[in-house]
Structure formats: C-alpha cells, structure tokens
C-alpha cells in the first residue's frame, strides 16, 4: 500500500516505544536482507499477541530471523531443537526430589522464557508438539497437578520444514490453529543474495545485535495496537471473509472464530505498524493469507495459499 496514502488523514502515533519499535524492525531488516514483508508480519504477530510459525526449506534464514528477533526484542530467550526423541517433560520441566527440603521441587523446562524458539517443530512426535498447546493458548503450563504461569510477554516462534521433507510429523490442525500467523521466507532476490554473499557473516552480525525493546515496551505496544479502531464497515469485511471460507465448495473446514479474532488482531497490528490508528481492508488483505491459509482444510488437492487468495478475490470490499 502507498505510504503517502496511509499517512493521509491519520493521527500520527507518537511515543518513544513506537520509535524503539521502528529501530527494532530496522535492526532485524539489516540482518535478513530483502525480507521486509515477512519481518513486518513477524512484528505484527508479536504486537497482536500471537505466535509465529515460519515454514520454509532449510537454509533460507528461519533460525536467523528467530535469533535476531530474540536479541532485538530484549526478551529472555530459550531455544528448543525439536527431534523425534524429544519428550514433553524436556519442554515443560520435571519435579525432582529435593533432599534438603524433603519435597519435590519443580525444575522448570526451557518453555519458561519470554521468547521460545521451537526449531524444526515438526520433527518431534505429535505428543511432544501437544505439550506446547497449553502454553501457547493459555500462557501457562501444568505439571504435576500444578499450573504455573509463564513469563509475560510469551512469544513462540516455531520453524518447520515443508511437509514433504523426510522425517517430519505434520502438525495437527489444532496445533496449527494456535499459530496466529504463518510466514515463509522464500529465496532471496538476486540483489539481496549478492549482499548476503559479499556482506559480513551472519553469526558475527547476530553477535553485534543489541536489544532495542524491552518486555514492558512490548506490553505497551500491544495495548496500543489493540486500541486501533476497527470500524463497523471493516468488521463487516472480516465477517464476510470468515463466512466465505465456510461456504466455499473447495474448503472442507473453514475459519474458526479464533481465526476471525486472530485476523482482526493481526490487521490491527498491521495498521499500527503502518502508523495508522484505524484498520483498512488492505490491512486485512495483507495478513489474510498468513493468518488463514494454514487453518483452511481443502476439500480437494488445492494449494492452501491459492485457496486463501481465491477467498480474498471473492469477497467485495466497500
């Protein structure tokens, strides 16, 4: 969308947290060259209080993006490398017997972090994947009968290889629904690739990154993004999209109400990133494929992204 147009007739949002957000985006952009859109979407997902799924072939920068985000956001960071022998307790934590106090003491797992990188999530068994479910949905984990709250903000960035790669377990639909946004990074364009080849080593770059935001900043930004206006006309549009997904002949299962909420939240965050205090249909359209495609269950073998695009084209905008 045209930046001039977006700025026209809007109230400019001024805040220091806002300026730090822009700096954070710029810093991640410097590490991942030519990936402006996916990075913006990742930040939209963060501001919409969702979890991010990055799906692509190995080697295009999924983990680098997650690392860059972790450092830049200034959050406590843990990484879990998912493998087929990973157990749920390896994520959540275990109770060990404390001989001094003569009682069991809970040893928190790596999930107790503000930013969790679940690398190659689809290499673990569905049982282990499901251990993430509660954490992602409710921001708490239950172990040994006790619920324990996770630190706030809690942001999961999961990466996965495409389904047809050998040795993967496809994420169950319920798990997929927990991810607010799915992005893919794709191969870099020739210009960016050249910069990548001639530029500094990514590891060195990552080492030089500094935190641009803090947990408090993120919580503040989230509440600002949440306050972005969604007019009745826009809510009509979101509802029309959700309804269309449930009626489309090529879709077996359409978008859930949770998906509708995610769509609106993401569109709000997108508008906020565009420095606007109201949501426009273009914001919805920008994030729709990322929000909807992985939740649609096609009735026949059609690419999910193409289905989402068809839905967008079939719903009229006011």
């Amino acid at each position: 969308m045209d930046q001039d147009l977006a700025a026209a007739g809007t109230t400019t949002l001024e805040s220091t947290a806002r300026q730090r957000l822009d700096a954070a985006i710029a810093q991640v952009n410097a590490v991942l060259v030519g990936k402006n859109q996916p990075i913006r979407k990742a930040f939209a997902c963060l501001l919409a209080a969702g979890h991010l799924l990055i799906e692509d072939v190995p080697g295009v920068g999924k983990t680098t993006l997650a690392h860059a985000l972790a450092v830049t956001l200034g959050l406590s960071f843990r990484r879990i490398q998912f493998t087929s022998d990973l157990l749920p307790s390896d994520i959540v934590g275990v109770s060990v017997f404390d001989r001094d106090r003569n009682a069991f003491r809970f040893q928190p797992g790596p999930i107790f972090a503000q930013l969790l990188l679940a690398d190659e999530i689809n290499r673990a068994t569905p049982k282990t994947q499901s251990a993430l479910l509660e954490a992602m949905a409710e921001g708490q984990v239950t172990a040994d009968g006790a619920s324990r709250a996770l630190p706030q903000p809690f942001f999961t960035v999961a990466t996965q290889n495409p389904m047809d790669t050998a040795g993967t377990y496809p994420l169950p639909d319920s798990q997929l629904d927990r991810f607010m946004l799915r992005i893919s990074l794709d191969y870099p364009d020739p210009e960016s690739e050249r910069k990548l080849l001639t530029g500094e080593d990514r590891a060195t770059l990552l080492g030089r990154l500094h935190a641009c935001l803090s947990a408090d900043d993120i919580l503040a930004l989230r509440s600002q993004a949440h306050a972005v206006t969604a007019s009745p006309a826009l809510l009509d549009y979101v509802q029309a999209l959700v309804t269309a997904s449930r009626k489309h002949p090529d879709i077996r299962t359409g978008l859930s109400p949770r998906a509708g909420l995610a769509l609106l939240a993401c569109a709000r965050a997108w508008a906020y990133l565009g420095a606007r205090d109201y949501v426009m249909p273009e914001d919805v359209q920008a994030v729709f494929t990322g929000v909807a495609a992985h939740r649609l269950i096609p009735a026949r073998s059609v690419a999910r992204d193409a289905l989402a695009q068809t839905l967008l084209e079939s719903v009229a905008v006011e």
Partner: protein
Amino acid sequence: MIWRRSRAGIREAVPLAALPFSLLCATVLCTLAAHAPHLPPWFTAVLAAIIAARWWQRRRHHRRASAWLRIALLIAIPGVVLAVYGTPFGRDPGAAIVCGLLVVKLLESEHARDARMAVGFACFILMSALLFDQSLAFTIMVGLLLLPPLATLRALESGLPPGRWLPAFKTGGVLLAASLPAALLGFMLIPRLATPLWGAPDNGVAHTGISDRMAPGDLHTLLTDSAVAMRIGFDGLPPPEDQRYFRGMVLWHFDGSAWTRGPASRRAWPPAPVEARGPVTRYSVTLEPSHRHWLFALDVPVAAPEGTTLLPDRTLQASRPIDHTLHYRVESAARYHLGASTLDPRLRAAALQLPAGYDPRTRELAAGWRERAAGNDLAIIRDALEMYHNGGFVYDLDAPPLGRNSIDDFLFDTKIGFCEHYASSFTFLMRAAGIPARVVVGYQGGYWNPVAHYLLVRQSNAHSWTEVWLAGRGWVRIDPTAAVSKVIMAQAGSDTGLPLGGGDISWWLPWQNRFDIVNRWWGQTVVGFDALRQSRLFRPFGIEHATAQMLGITLAVIVFLALSAGALLASLRPRTRPRDALAAAQSRLQGKLLRCGIVRGAAEGPSDFYTRAARALPPEAETLRALAGEYACLRYAFPEPPPERTRAFARRVRSFHPGRVVK
C-alpha cells in the same frame, strides 16, 4: 492526451495468462478446422503443427515466439499460396492467406489486447468458411466452433476460478444462445439486395454436373458423386420409376470421339410440336447451382417456365448460368408424340451426321442390318437391342480406355462400359443404319422420399440415352443401357437411389437420403431466403410487398422495444442501494474513473484502487490521493462517517472531473 495514452497502457500491460492462451490456441485450431476442407491438407497440417508447437513452447519454457520465425512465416505464407493457387485473389487463396496470418497473430499474442484482436480476427475467418458451404450441418458446426472464441473472451476477463476452463465455456454457451434471437431477427429483417453486392470468385474450379460435351468416360466422376443435383415435388403422384427421365440437353454432333450439341441445335428451328398422349404432370424443381445454362425437366416438357427458353429439341435453357439454387415449375407429358409428321431435311441430315473415316466395322454391321431389315426401322432397332442384351455386354463404371475407333473398340472388343458408351454406340449404329438419331443427356431415377413427398436426384443419377426418329411416331426415346443391365437399371429408381452399378457410393447413402428432408428444409427456408421471400414477409399482415424501408423500420422498432423492455426490467430489479451518503459519493467517484477506463475490482481495497488510479492519471494523482485518504478515514476511522465531513467529501467528488483537465 496524456491520460488516453496511459489508459491504453493499462490494457496493454495485462499479460496473457496460461488459460486464455490455451483457449486462444483452441480458437485458432477450430478456425483452421472449419477451413480444412478446402485448404491443401499439408498446409493445414503445417499450420496446426505450428500452433501445437507454440502452445508447448509457451507452456513449457514460457518463452516468446522468435521474431524471425514470425517474419519468415509472414513472407512464406503469401509465397506458398501464390505457388499453390497461382493467384492471391479469389476465395480459396484468400482463405489460405487469412488462416496463415491468423496463426502468425497467435505467435505474437503476448498480451490480453493481442488475444482480443486475435479472437475477433478468428471469428471473422470462421464466418468466412460459410462462403464455401452453407449446408445445415456445416452451419451448425461453425456455430459450435464459435464457442472457443467466446470462452477465450470470457477467460480474458477476471473472476474466473484459476485453471478452470469449463466455466468459460459455460459463459460462451450462454452468450451464443442469447445471441440467437438477435441473429434470427437480423437474418429476417435486415434488407437484402436482389443480387449480391459482391461475389466470391471461384477461380474457375471445375463444377460437377452434366456438361454439354460427352466422350466415353466423361460421366464417370459424376456417377460416383453423391452431391444433390435437384429436388422435385410433384403436384400429384410421381411418375412411375421407368418414366423418370429428366431431359437436360440434346447432342447432335459426333466427331469420332465426343458428342457435342453441334450446329444443328443452334439454328432457330421452330420447336418440335408435342402432343400429349396422357395426363400432364405438374411439378416444381429446386435445382442446385450448376453454373451452366441447362434446366432439367421430366421427358418431355410441354411448356417453358418463366424466364427460360424452350429450345427446338425440347430442352430448357436459362438466360444466365445457374449460380444459386433455382426454383421453377414445369409441366411435362410422360406419354407423348414428339415432332412433326415429317422430319425437316436439314434436321434429318444433322441426325444422320457421322464423321468420315471412323469405326468401319460398326458401319459394316449397321449396313448388314439395314439390308436384312429391308426398310423396317423397328427391326433394326430390335436387332441392335438384341445385340446389347445377348452380346456379352457388361455394365461397369470401370470401363477400359478406347482407341481412335472408339465405337468399334467398344462394340467388338471391350464390351464394357456405362450409359454413355451405350448411348453413343447405339446412336452411331442407328445413324449408320440410316435412322435419324441423337443423344440426350440428363438424369434418370432418383430417390422418392415417402415422408416429405419429393424426388431427390443426385449427380450420380446422371444418364444418357438415345432418341430415334420413326416415321409416324416422331422422336422416340430408347435407352440402350436398359437392354444391357435390366436388373441394375430397375434398381436405379428404387429406394436406395444407388446409381447404375455404382459400388463406389458409401453405405450411409440411404441414411443421407432420409436425412435430406432437413437439408431440403434448410435450403428452401434459410439459404433460399432471398430478397423476394423477404419482401413477402409481411403478407400475413396484408402487405403484399415489403420495401427495404419497411423492413428497416420494423427492425428498428423491434430493437427499440426489446431495449426498452430490458431497461424496464432492469429498473424493476431490486437495486443494491448505497448504504449511506459516503457510499453514494464513493460510487460516483468510481463511476467517473470508470469512464476513464479505470475499473475497480470487486475485491480491490479502496486505497489500492485509488493508488492505481493515481498512477494511471498522473495529472489527477494529487486530487485522487487526497480523496482516497479522506474516504478511507471517513469509512474506517469512525463508527459512523461524520455527516459534515461526508458532505464535504461528496462536494469534492462532484467537482472532480478526470480527463477534462488535460486536453
């Protein structure tokens, strides 16, 4: 005008997607198929191969066709046509050139705009195939071949599910069906010219049909041709099968190898008097174009139809070659006495003419009969027919070639032939024996359609026979072929309509004969709907002769009424009213941009749309950006658009005049 140029820019920039391109290839193939019957097969095959190769190349490698190939084709096509036809003018070379150029157009089609032009061009070429064939089956086929071009046009527009071609064809079908009433109206009411303004020259291609020269073997191609020659409807019962002889022309002169009309037929004799010896048969003939002067009538016509001449030998001649289907009514006497009581000496001389120095053995044979008969002509005729019957003669379309003394060779050596061999040799024999005789060429037999009650005569019914002059009886028809192959002759007039001994005619001919009812209806009602028939269109309303003006006014009135009815229906339909003043102002703005050629997609966000419009109309970009920002804010930043600002927005839209600023 700058904006006009940029408008064109928008259209041209749309690249041709895979589906419309495939459909365009199908369109060009269909056009080629419609012209295939009259193009050289290798030419069609090469063009089809180019289309297939281009389709494959674009699908597989996403590449453009080489410019050199297009230039080479552009030069080669007219060159090839010149080499094959010898001229670039005329119907056939013209068709070959445009088919070739259409393929070149396909090769350079990369954008939606090219495809639209190619489809228009293809439709025109498709329609031109009707210049070659106007039969019902072909017309229906051409109509159906219009589906791919219509589907292509549909696929060029947006809103089609990706990769699905069937919906495009559905739209094409609906369009085709919806156009039928308009086509019918135009067909009936657009004023016609009595004669075509222009004709498609035929390059002197040989026409099938009976010619006025007969040499042994000439009729062979005709006897295996199942094309329709004429259709005859009788007022009463049809004549019995053995009397279905249709007289075409009389050949007097024999030069040793061929029979021609000769000088005798060209002299202004008074017509030979005819005395009917039985009931007169009245009937109407629908003659297919023969490109010759001859009309055919049941032996022997008693009166000439209007506009034709009855020649002295009782044959009918039109003043102009028959280039389109001709209807005429004739009366004939099946039993008759033809000719005066005495034969004019000059005619007698013509009817006894024989070339000197030919066929000595035949002359010798005839002289022997003459001597034996002692003046009894009937005895000579009986001897001759007896010879054909028992002399080992065979009726066969595969007659061996004959030498210089063709009659001798046939009568004494080969003894194999068909009607013209028999008529020719019999007439020669009669003349050599001193009996005046002449050859008559026409049709014999035909298929009687018991449902629609008409006689269908095909070219394969072509026949020749002999007339001899007998004192006191005048000219008498004798069919020597009947003496040879009695059984096969009987079959000629039977149900099957098979020609004499014709083994070459396909097995579906009986079905073709039955189906001919539809063709006859088509020919009479549709193809035969000429200026005269059109002028009689208003007869039921008491108007005897409708002028072109009346037709035009009627057409205009009907079109006006139809459009009014359509407008009324459209206005009665519940319209989607704009939901508020802001929506009304926005739709007004979009209407103004629409007139500049900028159409908003249904699912296009307002901001995206106005950004696009601003790019297309650079002089208006500032205004458009401001309007777009204001609209987006009013619509999406407030629960309800504030009335005051909405009114201001509406005013700005009203005063916005895209295109008017730039001149």
